[in-house]
């Protein structure tokens, strides 16, 4: 067993191994070093995994050496490698970026606990993505949720506590719904391995239990993925969490639940329940469209910059839901690419917001008047991110919107309506991005506000610009993202590669 074969287990084991170490060694600044080392190694392992699976094959890794349906199995294909790369990338960017902003917001006393929770949040998310066992996904979902609660509750403001409490209640109800769905699946098929489930679900004769299982799993994951009606926990959680934490969870945490929803719906239910794709579109299309409109409208009227970006995330998740509901290769590719691109764009924008926050001590849009001149580099990064949200060519947003429109055209009259909706919501995105630009560049700083002169600290600015430039690079050279996404989509739909 060379090290190369052990990679699938290493991507999670490294994080799980460094977390207790980060908690135990309480010297000054040491937990941050251990955490960054762990996350960056995991990112490197995820990239090398992506390189091996880009051809289209699936790595099966049996935990504990036990064969498939009896032991737990990790299964990594193009789709899971792409999302694992997104998670570990966002986590390492958030950590490297967050050294100064976390020292400012999170006290030294709880630094060991905080960084151990950060490591375990990454481990939970990556564990969910690489796992090939339905109950194992639940266990790692709990690891990532519990550590996200800990990260959010470390926010300086007292409202972080009440938003953590609401997130705990909704998150636990969502996870328990998923558990009930898995329970019903186990009741009718007798196995927990996802590949085995997909094979045996076809022969189930009493369809009623399967429909209810699909319903429970979808609703549970919709709560965790903050799809439209069940997203009420997200804006407050993103707003009151420490800025570096928002960078990480905005880029990665909701995408993983969307990934699990995609895998469970397409791998398990698609070939078993007869007209499941019609049911999926019936369930996801209205929710996606409502998410688009309500997210954009709420963002337009929002005063707090972080909550504005959170509402725009609700809208962008609406795009991904639309992509998932179009059961065609182009639609799925668009959804997967948008998961990656949106993670990159939103991560960059929240980094810019954190840079503004460390200088202006506030994230209220009104108080940021004149930021364009005071902090040119930060605002430039924010503007590029904003253009990405709108979907201007040369930005990652354009690529994913391109594939979504392509897929929508293939759906006849419903598709034409969807294309109109996508374009209209891009216009709404222009409004709320312009609102921020207008305040930052064309308005004089208020007289009573404290004058801000110097730029954000270099140690925060460089990671922001690395993420923004990475965004532009994948907008130009789409071989990596679209390559992995289309291979993943073909595997999900069972189409020949």
């Amino acid at each position: 067993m060379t090290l190369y074969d052990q990679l699938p287990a290493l991507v999670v084991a490294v994080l799980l191994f460094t977390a207790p170490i980060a908690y135990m060694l309480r010297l000054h600044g040491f937990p941050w070093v251990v955490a960054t080392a762990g996350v960056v190694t995991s990112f490197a392992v995820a990239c090398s995994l992506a390189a091996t699976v880009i051809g289209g094959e699936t790595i099966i890794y049996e935990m504990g050496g036990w064969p498939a349906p009896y032991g737990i199995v990790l299964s990594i294909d193009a789709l899971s490698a792409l999302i694992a790369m997104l998670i570990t990338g966002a986590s390492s960017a958030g950590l490297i970026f967050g050294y100064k902003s976390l020292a400012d917001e999170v006290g030294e006393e709880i630094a060991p606990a905080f960084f151990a929770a950060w490591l375990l949040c990454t481990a939970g998310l990556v564990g969910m993505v690489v796992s090939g066992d339905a109950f194992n996904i639940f266990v790692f979902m709990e690891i990532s949720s519990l550590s996200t609660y800990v990260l959010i509750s470390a926010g300086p403001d007292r409202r972080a506590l009440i938003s953590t409490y609401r997130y705990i209640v909704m998150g636990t109800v969502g996870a328990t719904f998923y558990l009930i769905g898995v329970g019903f699946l186990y009741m009718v098929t007798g196995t927990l391995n996802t590949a085995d489930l997909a094979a045996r679900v076809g022969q189930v004769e009493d369809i009623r239990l399967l429909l209810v299982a699909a319903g429970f799993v979808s609703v549970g994951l919709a709560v965790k993925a903050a799809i439209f009606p069940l997203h009420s926990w997200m804006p407050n959680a993103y707003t009151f969490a420490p800025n570096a934490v928002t960078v990480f969870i905005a880029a990665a945490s909701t995408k993983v639940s969307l990934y699990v929803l995609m895998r469970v719906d397409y791998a398990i239910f698609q070939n078993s329940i007869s007209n499941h794709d019609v049911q999926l579109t019936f369930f996801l299309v209205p929710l996606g469209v409502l998410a688009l409109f309500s997210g954009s409208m709420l963002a337009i009227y929002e005063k707090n910059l972080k909550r504005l970006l959170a509402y725009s995330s609700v809208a962008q998740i609406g795009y991904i839901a639309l992509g998932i509901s179009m059961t065609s290769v182009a639609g799925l590719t668009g959804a997967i690419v948008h998961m990656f691109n949106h993670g990159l764009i939103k991560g960059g924008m929240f980094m810019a917001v954190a840079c503004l926050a460390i200088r202006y001590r506030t994230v209220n849009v009104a108080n940021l008047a004149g930021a364009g001149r005071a902090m040119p580099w930060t605002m430039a990064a924010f503007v590029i991110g904003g253009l990405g949200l709108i979907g201007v060519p040369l930005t990652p947003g354009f690529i994913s919107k391109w594939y979504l429109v392509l897929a929508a055209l293939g759906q006849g009259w419903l598709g034409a309506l969807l294309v109109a909706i996508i374009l209209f919501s891009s216009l709404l995105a222009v409004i709320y991005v312009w609102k921020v630009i207008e305040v930052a560049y064309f308005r004089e700083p208020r007289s009573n506000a404290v004058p801000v002169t110097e730029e954000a600290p270099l140690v925060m600015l460089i990671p922001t610009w690395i993420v923004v430039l990475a965004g532009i690079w994948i907008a130009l050279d789409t071989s990596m993202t679209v390559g992995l996404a289309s291979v993943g989509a073909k595997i999900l739909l069972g189409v020949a590669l």
Partner: protein
Amino acid sequence: MITIVFSLFLLTMLVIVAVAILRTDNLFTAVMLSGIFSLIMAANFFILDAADVALTEAVIGAGISTVLFLSALALTAEYDRSPPVGTWVPLLTSSALGGVIIFATFQAPRLGDPNAIVHKHVAPWYLERTPELIDVPNVVTAVLASFRGYDTLGEVFVVFIACIGVMSLLGRVRPRRDSIEEGEFEKRSDNLRHHLIPRVVGKMLVPFIVLFGLYVQFHGDFGPGGGFQAGALIAAGVILYALVEGGPRGRELVPEWFSSMLVALGALTYTAVGVVSMMRGGRFLDYSALSHDPIHGQHMGILIIEAGVGMTVAGVMITIFHAFSRRGIR
């Protein structure tokens, strides 16, 4: 046939207690009734042939959970002052949920019917192959520790995060705001020292409880038991001592830094077993790579990871209890 009558009897009581918990206004009563709820649930599990789960539910559900809720109640309010909010929407959603499930379960396999798919596919393999592959009488411990050891590793880290979360939330000792100074409060209320009989009996039983915890830990392979239950039992013994002797003396018995180190060490042991089995050429958490003879390797692996789990769970429960009790009215 006999057990069906008992399980019907207990399930009805379960529903009655649940409805009572919902209707009572006094939070203390709700906590007491949730203690009874856990005990009935544990008795139910025992009747449904799940001995390990009954032990866990009793020790964690009725024991640790009640103590945690009580110490949280001591720090917050005791009455549910608010009238129930508009009861239409919750009533509608919950009855819709219930209706969907009852509609679906008409096709579900009946209780105990032997040709349900669940008993046909994966379970028989565990029951037949465990004596030959792992040779441990308690199949539940074998599946928990070896066949699905990765799940239990995730489980240990869930408990680890609970400890981290409580430490990061309650770790910072609160600035003292109110008038009762330290010594006087200690004397009056934080312990049962002036109750002679409970103090003597309580302190006399603490060593036996910890001994019983260790017995459950190492007896896990043969009878109902294992890391989780043992950790909770050992923690229960230490909590009993802290209840009787008062917080500060309890913290002298098991100091704060020791219990959080115990937590980190337990989690580290479990992961280290996985990494060592990787280094010795096996897969992650493949215990047969741990020593020359696979079955001996499995035994050693299960013993070590159960010790890791026991350390972590005991450390977590003690740390959480100390964090809550140190947060008292100071």
